[in-house]
């Protein structure tokens, strides 16, 4: 198990009811974090439509997650 701080944005934050929380998760990659927090962020979409960052760096869904990492879950963006 790893301690991972998960940050939720926009509709994910509203669904989770918190902007971030530290969870104890059995995960190897960011994709695992997305799956295991599905009831928190509430996305029914495949994660390919979302973006992810680890420790403030944009990452992909194969990026490994280590104990103590911060994982940012971004719903589909809509700038401009």
């Amino acid at each position, binding site marked *: 198990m790893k301690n991972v701080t998960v940050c939720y944005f926009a509709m994910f934050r509203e669904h989770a009811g918190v902007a971030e929380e530290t969870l104890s998760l059995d995960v190897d990659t960011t994709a695992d974090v997305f799956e295991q927090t599905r009831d928190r962020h509430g996305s029914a979409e495949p994660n390919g*439509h979302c973006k992810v960052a680890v420790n403030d760096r944009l990452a992909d869904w194969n990026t490994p997650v280590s104990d103590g990492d911060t994982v940012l879950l971004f719903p589909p963006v*809509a*700038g401009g």
Partner: protein
Amino acid sequence: MMELTDAAIETASLQASLANPAAGGYCAFEGWVRNENEGHEVERLEYEAYEPLCIREGEKVIAEARAKFPFLEARCVHRVGRLELGECAVWIGVAAKHRDEAFRACRYIIDEIKVRLPIWKKEHYVNGDSGWVNCERCASHGMKHGIEK
């Protein structure tokens, strides 16, 4: 330079900051809050952004534009927080020696900004509903996310 602001975007002073004696062409783009989206009457918007990555990714987009379409000066400002109808949500200005680079770089920057920066838009509708707007790519793939009562 990529910036975020929660105050009204002052386009005149931004444009003035791009003055360059070698520039012959200037292209600007502005995204305005319009009164309708996909059949919903919009009353106002809220933008939420994750600033550290917006700045870093925005700077990367501008650097890519410069490599593809060499320009002299470029700047992008994106508004966050609450916006009313008609307000400017994003401003991009590019000054180049010739107009072709100015147009192409400006277009590249807005196209990439819209799909790469961690910014989200919540629309508040006249009928009291609200909803997070999906990215253009999702929309073009026919994706639907919920509209909340």
